[in-house]
């Protein structure tokens, strides 16, 4: 039983790290750009599919993990500069509809290119197999994933708190108009923010591929989870998104032990509890 609980906690932690990465990406886009990014899920899916194709072509898993999020960033830049940018003045309904349309288009393009059947991407030989931790034996890739995602979150935190651009992004979440007044070119800030959000989504997608496999609907499945992360965190809170993501992952892991059929419902249960007891979200101020 301890073995089961420990391994499920680790599983949940891994999942939670992925949720935190996508959730932070969405938080940035929602907070800075103030648009409901319904294309976030398909960016995640694109990250996984790009990683699959690159790994197949070059044979290097590491290179795939490196390159595929960057390709997703290009897609993100394209979306922002060609479509979203024209809609900042419009109502949320049109922004939502446009991004929803983009999600449909990318989703169908994925099916056209890669086919409707799912794939699995195997981790490289150096990361496959299991590691004996003393009390339990655990897949190596999942351990590396937890460490790597943790490392990325630390990097992101340092970027947001220590660099100039990070400060501008945080200021943009707090008060967008003030950033404009201070003479900062918001168009570029918005572009970079969308790119960073897309990068995080693509990275999470690529990292998730060896664990959860690739299916065309993966983008549609992750999207509600991203939004739940944002709701639990409190809109616009980056540390909140990290905590909420990990919390959801862990509770899913716990649910797998006792109620394996309810793993998806648990996410929404957490959300329900949050909005009953703390309507502004865990870290929300507004």
């Amino acid at each position, binding site marked *: 039983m301890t073995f089961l609980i420990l391994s499920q906690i680790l599983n949940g932690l891994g999942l939670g790290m992925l949720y935190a990465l996508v959730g932070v990406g969405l938080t940035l886009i929602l907070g800075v750009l103030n648009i409901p990014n319904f294309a976030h899920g398909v960016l995640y899916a694109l990250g996984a599919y790009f990683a699959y194709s690159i790994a197949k072509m070059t044979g290097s898993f590491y290179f795939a993990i490196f390159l595929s999020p960057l390709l997703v960033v290009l897609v993100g830049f394209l979306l922002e500069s060609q479509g979203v940018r024209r809609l900042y003045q419009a109502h949320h309904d049109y922004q939502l509809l446009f991004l929803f349309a983009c999600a449909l288009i990318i989703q169908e393009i994925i099916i056209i290119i890669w086919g409707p059947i799912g794939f699995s991407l195997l981790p490289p030989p150096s990361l496959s197999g299991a590691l004996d931790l003393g009390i339990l034996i655990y897949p190596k890739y999942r351990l590396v994933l937890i460490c790597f995602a943790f490392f990325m979150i630390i990097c992101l935190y340092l970027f947001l708190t220590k660099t100039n651009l990070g400060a501008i992004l945080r200021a943009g979440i707090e008060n967008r108009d003030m950033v404009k007044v201070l003479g900062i070119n918001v168009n570029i800030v918005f572009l970079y923010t969308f790119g960073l959000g897309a990068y995080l989504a693509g990275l999470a997608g690529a990292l998730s591929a060896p664990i959860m496999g690739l299916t065309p609907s993966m983008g549609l499945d992750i999207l509600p989870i991203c939004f739940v992360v944002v709701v639990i965190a409190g*809109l616009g809170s980056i540390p909140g998104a990290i905590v909420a993501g990990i919390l959801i992952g862990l509770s899913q892991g716990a649910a797998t032990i006792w109620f394996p059929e309810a793993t998806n*419902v648990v996410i929404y249960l957490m959300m329900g509890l949050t909005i009953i007891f703390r309507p502004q979200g865990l870290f929300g101020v507004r």
Partner: protein
Amino acid sequence: MNKYTIICLIIFILLGPFLLPNATITEMLIFGIVAISTNIMLGYTGMLSFGQALFFGTSAYISGLILLAGFPIFLAIPIATLGSFLISLFVGYFCVKREGLYFICLTFAFNQMFYFIAYVWTEVTGGEDGLVGITRPEFIDTQFSFYVFISILFLTSLYLMYKIITSPLGLIFKLIRENPSRAEAIGYNVRFFKLVSFSIASTFTGLAGSLYVLIHSMVPIDQIHWLKSGDIIFMTLFGGVGNFLGPLIGVVGYIWLSDTFSIIWARWPLIMGVIFAIIVLYFRGGVSELLENLVKKSQSYFKKNKDEKYIKN
């Protein structure tokens, strides 16, 4: 609504069954209720909810279950509608506390919460297969009687919604859309009226959901999936939110287009996505505004011709 739009509506309802297959035209009327009621919330009150499939789907499940249990349809429809009203009060209570993006996030997440309840609770809802084996009652067994039944309910709910929009309540909704802080200052409880608007929209959506069961004699699980909410928003915006009957044009256009494309190409959502994007980027007012502009232009054109005639004479 002026008399031309009423005439157009009557012509549409009379000619519809001859031009389109029965399942398509009834689906159009049912989603017409959904889109017009969504417009009360979206267009008139200015609240964008991304969770209308929740009420549509839940009500479809309730009415399907009551029909499967052998109760008559006159019990199933009111109970399902009442059910979606109660759920809308519950969900709305939490959602209307928030505005803008947070409201969208919350309604979206609630939608998916109910989807997963339907997905997991297989003994009751049939899970992924949906609810099957529902039979239509005898008196609406033929295509003609079914169409008459649906169109009577359609016109009744249209009349009710029109009454709501033109009543003082409708004016309060518009006030909240235009200037919520002024509404608050005048003494209206904005949150309460937002909840009223939300439940009116959701109750009519629920009514439509309870009727939807009868078309294909089943409840597929995608009727409660968030993609359906996206479709509902699109139908409403496609027609144009500035107009009471505008969303109906959107519904007819959307269902006709998706039916046509789905025969031609299995990847038809791609085409729909491209159409969505083009409309958002270039024709933001939707079809009804496009038509209004055309009418205005042609009127001014004819007027100009008349003026020129006068000058010549």
